[in-house]
């Protein structure tokens, strides 16, 4: 039997051929393999090591971060005092306009254990909370600065978030001040950047304006900051605008994040957009009345 085996050199050639063939097969059919379970096992195996490495990294950066956070807290306290005054009058104004009350986002703090996926920019993150902690697929992941991504896989005590830097991620967004709608996606080439696309050429968008998640989004709650407009240009067709935005969240410093529950899929599994004036069952806000052309109430 041993005499049938090829010599050492030929054996290594056979080995490499097998590996290469296997890799090629995976390249073709890899998308159909249910890799989520394998990733879950990998995440669980690596989590203790990730925690240790992360702790060392945090310790190393804690001095600078502490200084930065102190400055930020001071700034936010001043903002908060001003916003509290506005928050007091906002419910009255919304009630007069017949608008639904804002629903507060319940945020769950999580630790970012590892970044991975894409080359060279990471496009996924392993988070320290999973199904057991109420983290579900579809939940939004954000930092105090803005949106980071979305939960795409959730296991027992860990979960995986797909970041804004994933080329397959598309987020319905709007320009905060004007309400201009568009879709934010990551473009890897000719250079990596976040782009607000599908904005009509007639819409006015200016550099410096903030882009937030839209109410039209089926995946994300409304009003989460996504980025700031840095460049406005036409797309290749010349019919739409291509707006470059800088992400609000600092992707290079992802250590802690928050998970906010996204819209849960309906029982029949068919996603549908929310009605414009859908009453919020939590707040009991009334549905605004509609009027016909003569001014009579129709519902």
């Amino acid at each position, binding site marked *: 039997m041993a005499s049938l085996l090829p010599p*050492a050199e030929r*054996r*290594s050639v056979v*080995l*490499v051929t097998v*590996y*290469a063939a*296997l*890799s*090629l*097969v*995976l*390249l073709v059919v*890899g*998308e159909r*393999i249910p*890799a989520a379970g*394998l*990733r879950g096992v*990998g995440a669980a195996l*690596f989590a203790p*090591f*990730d925690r240790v*490495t*992360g702790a060392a*990294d945090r310790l190393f950066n804690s001095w600078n971060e502490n200084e930065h956070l102190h400055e930020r807290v001071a700034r936010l306290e001043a903002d908060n005092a001003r916003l509290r005054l506005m928050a007091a009058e906002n419910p009255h104004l919304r009630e007069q306009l017949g608008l639904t009350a804002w629903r507060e986002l319940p945020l769950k703090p999580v630790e970012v254990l*590892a*970044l*991975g*996926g*894409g*080359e*060279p*920019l*990471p*496009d*996924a993150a*392993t988070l320290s909370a999973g199904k057991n902690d109420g983290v579900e697929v579809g939940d939004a992941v954000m930092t105090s600065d803005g949106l980071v991504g979305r939960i*795409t896989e959730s296991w027992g005590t860990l979960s995986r978030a*797909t970041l804004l830097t*994933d*080329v*397959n991620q598309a987020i319905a967004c709007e320009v905060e001040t004007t309400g201009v709608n568009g879709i934010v996606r990551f473009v*890897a*080439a*000719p*250079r*990596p950047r976040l782009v607000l696309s599908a904005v009509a050429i007639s819409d006015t968008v200016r550099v410096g304006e903030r882009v937030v998640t839209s109410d039209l989004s089926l995946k994300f709650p409304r009003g989460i900051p996504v980025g700031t407009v840095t460049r406005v240009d036409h797309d290749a067709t010349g019919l739409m605008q291509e707006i470059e935005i800088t992400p609000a969240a600092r*992707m*290079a*410093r*992802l250590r802690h994040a928050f998970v906010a529950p996204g819209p849960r899929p309906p029982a029949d599994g068919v996603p549908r957009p929310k009605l414009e004036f859908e009453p919020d069952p939590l707040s009991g806000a009334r549905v605004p009345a509609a009027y016909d052309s003569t001014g009579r109430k129709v519902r």
Partner: protein
Amino acid sequence: MRAIGMFLFASLVALLLRSTVLASLATRGIVIDVLVLATVTWSLRQSDAWGATFGFVLGLAADLDASHWIGRHALALTLIGYGVGRLSNTLVRDSPLTQLVLIALATALHQIWVTAFDATGGVQGLPWFAGRVLLATVTTAPIGVLLLLLTRLLRRRGGYGHAPGTSTAG
């Protein structure tokens, strides 16, 4: 048994570095191709078969971590591991210059291959594409050589077990 232990340890360290410290650096634009670094180092130490196996396992783990294109790292790193393993029989592996050239070449090839999957920008994307490959090459190669030198100093001997440290060039 010791070799398998080293194999697992090296893979673990490379993957951990890639998902923590190096991922943060990458978002700041500093790309260090630790997968290539580990594969080349391993292949210089071991034979071509071991180099290919290490490259395949490490690449597969990196592929599973990504959501798309499973197999792209595995294929590239298998061939790099095998190629470097073969060359290590005929090169002066202790020479920093040899190591620099090998790591630079392997990094450039790996980066070109991996970036090609994301290249949708046509000719306009070429400068960025070239810049990315160049950046990864010029950061990875010197760091790799330094690490190899440091390892040798710590071990106080040539780290390459399967042949004399100063084999003749073929």
